[in-house]
């Protein structure tokens, strides 16, 4: 069956929400992210700010140098989340096959709903109009026979764009040919460099390349993958049920940190945060991962299996601690991160010989759940470890509300 996939991407989402809610910011360069005088990066830049060359992931200090008159705002996750939910609800009116990619973009499989809402282009237009009238925000959409092309298309006429990719293979090839290879999903610096060295800059040049030659430049596997994309072939499904595959948290130090105890304390907080999310999604983790970024950006990761799979803070902290302990701190640390993967649901399959092991794990798991419940009702300040760094920050007022009766 012929598929029709939409990719809908909100335009400068965070800053658009800010400009919508604060009319005085409209028409002004707005940056959401870390403050201009501190370490950290830009999360989003308004189109006015982008004219100064500011883009997301750029250090805020650099953004400030490029445009000192820009308004720097801290991210307000709650309002963005609310807008995101509103938009998601609009998608759901058109099709149940929605795959959210992030807070501000999603794939929609509208194959088969054409008889209700019209062709792909008409559906995209209705979605865009509905978003504008109900949220006062603009979105760009791509309409195509598959996910790869739809995502590429939504980015072509931003902001407030609508691009329809033709259906015939010849027209698709012609549509892709003039584009840079960096537009292909998964082609980053590492893949691009050898390709460009071989004189391949556009997707058209890639199409002209035979698989054997490409395999000698890259690997046989990525050659095949890349060629298929170059011809606009992609049969991935729109995955409605997005199962979480990993959970991680990171912390960037305001100043590079050489204090082992402080790194350890921050890591413990990160492990607690990971544990909370793990339990919220009723999962157990089978693998723990530590990430350290040294001063000067070199990053290492170290991992170890968790046997049996766990979800309590105590086991996660012990794993994090052990990974850190095994890693000599050769340089000041810029960033520390902790994550888990190999997530499974339900109790572990492998039974334990020693009754005590299971009892201890059960007890730690129950205790972690109780901590979650207290923090849910009374905020993070409601209960925390004495060694927690979160302890150092003044408690936020809104966290001190009483539980709903």
């Amino acid at each position: 069956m012929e598929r029709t996939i939409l990719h809908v991407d909100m335009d400068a989402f965070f800053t658009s929400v800010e400009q919508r809610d604060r009319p005085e910011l409209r028409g002004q360069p707005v940056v959401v992210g870390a403050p201009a005088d501190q370490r950290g990066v830009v999360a989003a830049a308004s189109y006015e700010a982008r004219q100064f060359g500011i883009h997301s992931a750029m250090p805020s200090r650099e953004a400030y140098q490029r445009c000192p008159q820009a308004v720097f705002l801290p991210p307000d996750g709650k309002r963005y989340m609310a807008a995101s939910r509103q938009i998601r609800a609009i998608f759901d009116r058109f099709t149940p096959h929605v795959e959210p990619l992030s807070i501000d973009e999603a794939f929609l499989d509208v194959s088969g709903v054409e008889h209700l809402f019209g062709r792909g282009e008409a559906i995209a237009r209705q979605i865009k109009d509905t978003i504008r009238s109900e949220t006062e925000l603009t979105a760009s959409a791509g309409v195509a026979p598959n996910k790869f092309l739809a995502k590429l298309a939504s980015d072509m006429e931003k902001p407030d764009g609508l691009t329809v990719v033709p259906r015939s293979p010849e027209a698709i090839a012609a549509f892709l040919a003039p584009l840079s290879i960096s537009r292909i999903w998964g082609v980053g610096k590492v893949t691009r460099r050898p390709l460009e060295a071989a004189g391949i800059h556009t997707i058209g040049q890639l199409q002209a390349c035979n698989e054997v030659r490409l395999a000698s430049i890259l690997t046989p596997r990525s050659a095949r993958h890349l060629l298929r994309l170059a011809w606009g072939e992609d049969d991935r499904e729109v995955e409605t049920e997005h199962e979480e595959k990993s959970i991680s948290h990171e912390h960037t130090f305001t100043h590079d940190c050489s204090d082992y105890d402080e790194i350890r304390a921050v890591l413990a907080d990160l492990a607690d945060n990971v544990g909370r999310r793990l339990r919220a999604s009723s999962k157990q983790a089978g693998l723990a991962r530590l990430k350290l970024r040294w001063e000067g950006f070199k990053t290492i990761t170290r991992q170890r299996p968790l046997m049996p799979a766990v979800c309590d803070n105590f086991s996660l902290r012990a794993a994090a601690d052990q990974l850190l302990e095994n890693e000599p701190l050769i340089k000041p640390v810029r960033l520390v991160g902790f994550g888990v993967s190999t997530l499974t649901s339900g109790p572990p399959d492998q039974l334990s010989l020693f009754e005590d092991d299971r009892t201890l794990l059960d007890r730690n798991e129950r205790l972690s759940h109780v901590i979650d419940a207290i923090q849910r009702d009374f905020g993070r300040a409601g209960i925390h470890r004495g060694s927690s760094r979160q302890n150092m920050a003044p408690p936020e007022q809104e966290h001190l509300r009483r539980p709903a009766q």
Partner: protein
Amino acid sequence: MKIEIPKSALLEALQAVQNVVSIRTTLPILSNVLIQAEKGRICLTTTDLDVSIQCRVDAKVLKGGATTLPARRLSSIVRELPSADIEIEVDDKDTAQVHCGSSFYKIMGLSEEEFPPISKAEGKFCYTLDQGAFREMLRKTAYAASTDETRFVLNGVFLSFKDNKLVMVATDGRRLALVEHEVEFPAEAEVDLILPSKVAAELVHTLGDNGELRIFTKDNRVMFEFGEVVISSKLIEGTYPNYRQVIPAQCEERVAVERETLLSALKRVSLVTTEKATAAHLTFGKNQLVVSMTAPDVGEARETIPIKYTGKELHVAFNPEYMIDPLKNLNNDEIYVELTDDLSPGVIKCDIPFLYVLMPMRVS
């Protein structure tokens, strides 16, 4: 120091001691082997501060003394040298000149004074066993030890000298292996110790088929003396869990199975293992055992083994690795599998003082 020694003798001694040398170490001296020349023999020593190995070998000592040389490099050089006598002369700056046939090397060493002190093989009591017997005991248990560093007391093999017996146990909390061997020692010499897995592996590698092994223990260290070799190690401190409580007193069913047949069946079905599907299903029916495995994304595998069995039909799932480990380390033709139900521990026995307990996997 100046010595002369046949290549083969030096190589053998270096190979006996070099495993403990750390490749990545912050202390350069730990990459070196200590060479001490005494009357008519040399003594080679390596250490990683936890474990040390010493090996003595006959040599012509032209001038006594001691030095330390990079162990792995020296070993690779000696391996490539022609089969002839090697002459090593060390000056007072610890630079060694190595002559062998037409080959010549000059190797920078470090002073023996930098080498950490090695504790002597001594202790109040001595436990004497046959080298081969002790090695077999380790081989039948050590694989079951835990590698999870958060459970450090399980990162080794438990040795209990009691009632004129040595009981050796290893467990990772999911399966447990136990062997026993008769040893004579005075009642006041009864002792429990936890031997790090690293040393167990080193002993399996170095112990001979026969000959006497003498074990000493003192101040939380243990020393193994056999032939010309002495291995000394720190012990793991802590209380070993009460392993007796997890050994089922009695199981409901007992089945004799050919070891090799079951081993190869398990190896074959486990070829369809995936990250999500790790359980091998064992179904004991009338005179046959079916070993099977199903992985949703891969497919399935099934093996049927004839057995003598007329008991109730039993279905149980195990991690196949946990069954393969003991089976491949035993030599018996026939083993006994004892089971009660799908959630109770299973037991593997054979006609030697060996016992293996493993917990099943819960499958829906």
